[in-house]
């Protein structure tokens, strides 16, 4: 019961936020210099994908929104479509609807993101725990130095380096494309290093904090084997706050990663978004922006739900269960 009310409230907030995002994005796009048709004319077909003529494009644009329609009405027309998952055709990829582009590209980005965050966690948790258990030793400092390096390294540099190493030199992996599971390896590796570094820092500091808790000492005083106490009492509770870091990281990666997708020729959302922005492709920009906002908010909701699941203190407050009283 409490959960239903909670979810209801969150849903209302989500819808209100989406409306705010749409107004903001729409306004900003109106204020941005240049429009799709102008840019197409300047480029005079040289980079005009699909060979669609500028005049017909403008015509299509007019037929959908009406050229003389005031801006606020254009917004309402867009929103009318948006609520039923119809963002209209893209300007740049004129043969396709925005929602079809998103439906096709999002699973690609989401797959990469999920795998990358998963791998990042698998790398980060042991490293963080390892460093925390050796706090202020040389091992700890060396590990954290390496982690900082990993953090500072941008993913496109990692990707470029890995292409050089694994594809060009060792000829082990394809240098890009999206044809089979082997194409996942390079982007997932490149994308996971940064988040792994971020997460390892969190695991370390969270673990250090938990190790100082009296209940860890108390568990040792009960005769617990050190390893068991560290895993059951310290690690478990250290990982709960990690969810709040991993969630937004996942959302950020799921909405596409421009550089890595471009470098490795992956048909993900990030590339479409970047191209849409460059060419002032209004429907695609609006569509992807709103979709990003939605993903981010849904991720945050899921994070909060998982948090409640992991921490009984939050579960009983948020879920309204009053068992045991």
């Amino acid at each position: 019961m409490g959960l239903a009310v909670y979810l209801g409230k969150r849903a209302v907030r989500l819808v209100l936020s989406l409306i705010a995002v749409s107004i903001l994005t729409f306004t900003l796009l109106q204020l941005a210099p240049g429009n799709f048709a102008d840019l197409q004319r300047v480029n005079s077909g040289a980079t005009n994908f699909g060979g669609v003529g500028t005049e017909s494009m403008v015509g299509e644009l007019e037929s959908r929104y009406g050229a003389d329609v005031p801006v606020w009405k254009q917004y309402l027309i867009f929103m009318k479509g948006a609520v039923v998952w119809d963002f209209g055709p893209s300007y740049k990829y004129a043969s396709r609807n925005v929602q079809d582009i998103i439906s096709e590209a999002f699973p690609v980005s989401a797959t990469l993101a999920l795998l990358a965050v998963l791998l990042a966690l698998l790398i980060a948790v042991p490293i963080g725990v390892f460093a925390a258990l050796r706090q202020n030793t040389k091992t700890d400092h060396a590990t954290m130095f390496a982690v900082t390096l990993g953090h500072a390294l941008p993913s496109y540099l990692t990707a470029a380096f890995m292409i050089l190493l694994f594809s060009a030199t060792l000829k082990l992996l394809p240098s890009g494309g999206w044809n089979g599971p082997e194409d996942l390896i390079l982007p997932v590796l490149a994308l996971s290093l940064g988040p792994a570094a971020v997460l390892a820092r969190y695991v370390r500091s969270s673990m250090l904090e938990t190790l100082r808790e009296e209940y860890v000492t108390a568990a040792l005083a009960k005769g617990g084997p050190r390893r068991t106490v560290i895993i059951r009492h310290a690690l478990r509770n250290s990982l709960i706050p990690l969810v709040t870091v991993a969630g937004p990281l996942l959302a950020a990666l799921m909405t596409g990663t421009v550089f890595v997708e471009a470098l490795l020729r992956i048909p993900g959302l990030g590339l479409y978004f970047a191209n849409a922005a460059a060419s002032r492709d209004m429907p695609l920009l609006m569509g992807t922006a709103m979709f990003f906002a939605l993903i981010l908010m849904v991720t945050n909701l899921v994070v909060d739900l998982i948090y409640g699941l992991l921490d009984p203190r939050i579960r009983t407050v948020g879920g309204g269960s009053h068992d045991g009283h």
Partner: protein
Amino acid sequence: MSEDALLSVRELRTTFRREGAEPLTAVDGVSFDVRRGQALAIVGESGSGKSVTMRSVMGILPRTARITGGQALFGGRDLLAIGDRELRKVRGREIAMVFQSAMEAMNPTLTLERQLTEHLLWHGICNKAEARKRAVRALGDVGIPDPEKRIRTYPFQLSGGMRQRAMIAMAMVTEPALLIADEPTTAVDVTVQRQILDLLAELKNRGTGVIMITHDLGVARYFCDDAVVMYAGRVVERAPMDRLLDDPRHPYSVGLLGSGVEVGGRDLPLRPIPGSPPDLSHRPEGCPFHPRCAQAELPRCATEQEILTIGPGRDAACWKVAVDA
């Protein structure tokens, strides 16, 4: 050293490593006996080393601490010499510990069942089903109503008093011979304090040896048979409890009695001890209490401190006591 000693601590020394400074001696040559089925109070202000003393015996010191000397004889073995592997079998099974605050000493994300049964399993005392039965019984024994139901709750779902009882049940479920209670009434309401003390007194009457670490002589006198008064990491006086209360010998003990609200009870004005306990990194030479002592005679008090036996089971670390006696 007496025949019926359950635990004999001799000349215990514990130091803490510090960055860029000499190690700090927190416990400096502490000796005492706990007799079988009796209660010993270790009394002292915060920072006097009473907690570190008992944590040294239990082997649950922080990483920066090191035991640099002494013995802790328990059941014919020296707990300080048997190594962590063997000590773990004693910890939580034969010697159990109760902490100041159950809120901090119990893991917030594990149920009472988990926390009351895990050490039964670690020590291989019984199987899981039997462990649960014992845990329910232990909760009932400490006066928690409806233990079958309460065992499924989390610590935060209990009231402060119930939580403190649950922690005592957690310590007693393995039926230890010795219970170390580290300020078990400091963090609870006055009304609950009395209940907790009654509970500990009952455990003692059933044959469990108890060490009560406290800064409060009013708490210590409640059921303790003997007392050890500590100051700046050293024992300043050892005496049967009633003798200490009637006739304290060391000037610090006299001051401690005079400054306690609960102990006086004779409408005497409170006389706080002037000054404050020394910073252990600048421990005064000789008797560490001499800078605050009204009866100090220089230079003798600033150069030597010897422990003098002044009666059966009584000694005090002040040469003036011998002169008076």
